[in-house]
């Protein structure tokens, strides 16, 4: 009996062991086969009160996917990464893609530097892989596909507004070679941003606009603001600190500045409900981290503004050359939402101050009349004793004919010779002007770049339906390495908030910044489109009246005709005719 029991228990143990081993084996095999394709999604919101009373909110949604679109194996199972963008990357052999849609102009002097700069209108720049043979053809197809994805008129990007910068716009992702033949940059300053662009942008998020921070993105509040910019950035990044393998990163960013008077009725009191007309109830379940950061650097003891509900979590990060302190709200923790199950942050002001930005720029058109003009670009270096180099990229459409012999660069009244100039002249109706210059800005100075131009007369079919509005010239791009007060963090893979890891950092003493100027609106000589009808009427009248009467005078022959006689004479003539006698 005991033997039987013993053998039974042994059998049972053996069976159990075998089962466990098999399970472990199966799991191990599956893990080995499937040790790939891991994707991760993080979302964050940074709220920074600005010293003018406005408030700046920056959303970032980041999806990282360890996969390889380029090796020829067709990726067909998409989880967090949107399928439409994945297919675009593999079909057009894209190495990096950056597209932004902006409404409004970023006022650097009042608001500081944005986390992700963008020019007004639409901007698209793409690095293609080395394997692409016809870059221009691929670029054209890519812009058409993107215009369908984002419901924007990106199909108006063609060779007349595309440039190939030679030194600006180096790749933001990893890569060893940078041959600028594979870079294309285009901007559409006229492009309008509205709900129809936000809708497909929100559809790219894993949780859509149903859960997490994207719940706050309501168009009626977002477009009633001073500045609204939404962007998509795709680039390859290092997977870990060794950087032997790459993964694809998709960042969707949305920057918005709410105006004190439009949205807050003049009172310096902001809350999530006032800004977005929504409060938060949960984090996105697919997100590995979901955080809100509030910039409290100017407010260490709570004397300038107060934030409620209070949170004990604090974090420090070095961003834009400055060490800032943030209050952190972690939405993946249930206690953040408190007893009411919803989070509505309140920020109440007292007074405030701002760090003066070191680099900002302005641009305007000078001159009068419809024939000539002058473009002035001013770059301000506000650092008291350090000078730094800036790379200025100007892309001017072909119908403003630039006279490069009138190009002058002056700083503090003296001539400032750029150390690198790349100029590509325009060809009518084919390509725009491209001017790139590396200028050293002296400390505490204003550098002015002026160039004269002449306006061209377009063919009458090339005018837009509303030509008296004017024609837009895209923003200039100023890229620079600005000296930083605080040491920047060069370790790229340490766990950092998303807003501080956008631009890769190679040295500790300076940080990379990109500033955009205003777009210009110039009037071209416009014909009066109602004139053809008037001219036809006038010409036909003159021809009919003048020529007709002259023709009659020349070709008419005159015959003498007797005047008709009176009644009595006529009766007498009739009687005489009857008698056979000649008439009177």
């Amino acid at each position, binding site marked *: 009996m005991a033997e039987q029991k013993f053998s039974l228990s042994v059998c049972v143990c053996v069976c159990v062991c075998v089962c466990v081993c098999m399970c472990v084996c199966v799991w191990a095999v599956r893990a080995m086969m499937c040790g790939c394709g891991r994707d991760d999604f993080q979302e964050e919101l940074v709220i920074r009160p600005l010293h003018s009373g406005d408030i700046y909110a920056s959303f970032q949604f980041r999806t990282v996917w360890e996969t390889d679109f380029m090796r020829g194996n067709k990726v067909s199972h998409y989880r967090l990464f949107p399928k439409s963008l994945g297919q675009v990357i593999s079909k057009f052999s894209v190495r990096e893609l950056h597209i932004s849609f902006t409404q409004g102009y970023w006022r650097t002097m009042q608001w500081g530097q944005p986390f992700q700069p963008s020019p007004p209108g639409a901007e698209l720049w793409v690095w293609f892989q080395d394997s692409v043979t016809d870059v221009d053809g691929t670029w054209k197809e890519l812009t058409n596909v993107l215009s369908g994805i984002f419901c924007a*008129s990106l199909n108006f990007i063609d060779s007349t507004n595309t440039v190939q910068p030679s030194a600006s716009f180096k790749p933001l992702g990893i890569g060893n070679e940078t041959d600028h033949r594979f870079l294309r940059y285009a901007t559409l300053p006229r492009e309008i941003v*509205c709900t129809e662009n936000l809708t497909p942008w929100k559809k790219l998020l894993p949780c859509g606009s149903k859960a997490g921070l994207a719940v706050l993105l309501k168009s*009626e509040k977002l477009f009633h603001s001073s500045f609204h910019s939404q962007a998509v950035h795709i680039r390859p990044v290092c997977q870990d600190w060794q*950087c032997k393998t*790459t993964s694809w990163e998709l960042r969707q960013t949305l920057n918005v500045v709410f105006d004190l008077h439009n949205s807050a009725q003049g009172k310096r009191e902001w809350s999530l409900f006032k800004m977005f007309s929504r409060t938060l109830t949960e984090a996105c379940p697919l997100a590995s981290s979901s955080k809100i950061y509030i910039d409290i650097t100017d407010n260490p003891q709570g004397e300038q503004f107060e934030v409620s509900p209070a949170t004990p979590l604090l974090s420090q990060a070095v961003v834009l050359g400055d060490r800032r302190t943030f209050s952190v709200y972690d939405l993946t923790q249930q206690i953040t939402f408190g007893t009411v199950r919803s989070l509505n942050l309140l920020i109440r002001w007292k007074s405030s101050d701002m760090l003066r930005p070191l680099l900002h720029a302005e641009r305007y058109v000078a001159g009068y009349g419809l024939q000539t003009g002058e473009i002035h670009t001013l770059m301000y270096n506000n650092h008291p004793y350090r000078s730094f180099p800036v790379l200025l990229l100007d892309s001017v459409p072909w119908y403003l004919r630039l006279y490069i012999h009138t190009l002058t660069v002056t700083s503090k009244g003296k001539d400032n010779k750029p150390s690198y100039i790349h100029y590509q002249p325009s060809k009518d109706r084919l390509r725009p002007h491209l001017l790139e210059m590396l200028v050293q800005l002296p400390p505490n100075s204003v550098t002015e770049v002026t160039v004269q131009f002449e306006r061209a007369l377009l063919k009458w079919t090339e005018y837009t*339906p509303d030509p008296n509005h004017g024609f837009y010239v895209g923003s200039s791009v100023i890229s620079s390495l600005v000296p930083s007060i605080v040491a920047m963090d060069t370790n790229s893979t340490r766990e950092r908030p998303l807003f501080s890891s956008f631009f890769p950092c190679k040295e500790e003493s300076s940080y990379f910044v990109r500033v955009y100027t205003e777009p210009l609106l110039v009037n071209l000589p416009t014909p009066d489109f109602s004139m053809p009808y008037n001219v036809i009427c006038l010409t036909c009248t003159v021809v009919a009246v003048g020529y007709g009467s002259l023709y009659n005078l020349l070709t008419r022959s005159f015959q003498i005709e007797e005047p008709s006689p009176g009644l009595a004479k006529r009766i007498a003539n009739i009687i005489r005719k009857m008698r056979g006698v000649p008439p009177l």
Partner: protein
Amino acid sequence: VHLTISQSRAASSANHIQPLLVDNAGQFFSSGHTNNWAVLVCTSRFWFNYRHVANTLSVYRSVKRLGIPDSHIVLMLADDMACNHRNPKPATVFSHKNMELNVYGDDVEVDYRGYEVTVENFLRVLTGRLPPSTPRSKRLLSDDRSNILIYLTGHGGNGFLKFQDSEEISNVELADAFEQMWQKRRYNELLFIIDTCQGASMYERFYSPNLMALASSQVGEDSLSHQPDLAIGVHLMDRYTFYLLEFLEDIHPASKTNMNDLFKVCPKSQCVSTPGHRTDLFLRDPGSVLITDFFGSVRKVEITMETINLTDPIKQVEQRKYSYVDQLPVSEIIHQKPKQKDWHPPDGFILGLWTLILLVFFKLYGMKHLKHIF
């Protein structure tokens, strides 16, 4: 939305649904069309034509509500009113005064906007002759079993419709485009609605079968706008589309209202103009045509029980070391040699050429000419 479920497994335990299934299947195959498309066009630019955009958006809203998905709607708006700087309430387009109904909504997708709305693009969308790189959302991918709704609004006259104040489409061109669509089997039945002045002139020239047309006014009459809103400052809607929207708000996906009720929308007492319609080219009796045949959507759903296995991608391990690129490498940029794109002849070539020409000239004609020159 009409749903037909065809099960691949015999429903042995549900005998009572068999007659219902047969009835639904019969009804499904008798209606003649299997998918619905809509092409909604607003042709006017400038802020004072706000009402035309509101017209188009209210039809878009009704069509979406009744079931046609965005992928089957081609929406063309010639100007942006919602985010226009003159709009006191951005991201909204209202159809009723006192801002009662926002027809712009939160999930609108505009396919052709701004300068893209031209006569050429409209005719290319209808006939399907688009450049190969056009994305799918901008194409009308209809087949011979599609019912298409086409709605046009803007400023028009006797025999033409104005696009963006700079070009026109005539009724002859439109009729020819529909004939091309018929010959290419691009529609099963087509409903054409136009809300402009003298709109009935646009459907006078149609000659292809299976076309039904409605217009807001007869030849010689003007279509009038409905009401201004004092806060926004412009007229919000046209009368015909306003009453059409009111009529459509009562329709739900399962309603059985037919076309004869649509013809009665906006009589002369409400519209001031006389709406017209044309049904002689339509093969079915308008009384048997449901509103949802054009404004709603038919979707065929098939449920399958088979499982599909997804294969795991195989990862290749690369041993190369990567690094980020320097964003502003000043020394590299300064020493970069600018690339010469255009070919220039070598230096001195032109000078040598001219010397050669002069030498040959003096050899031929003698040296006596030399003293005249020097």
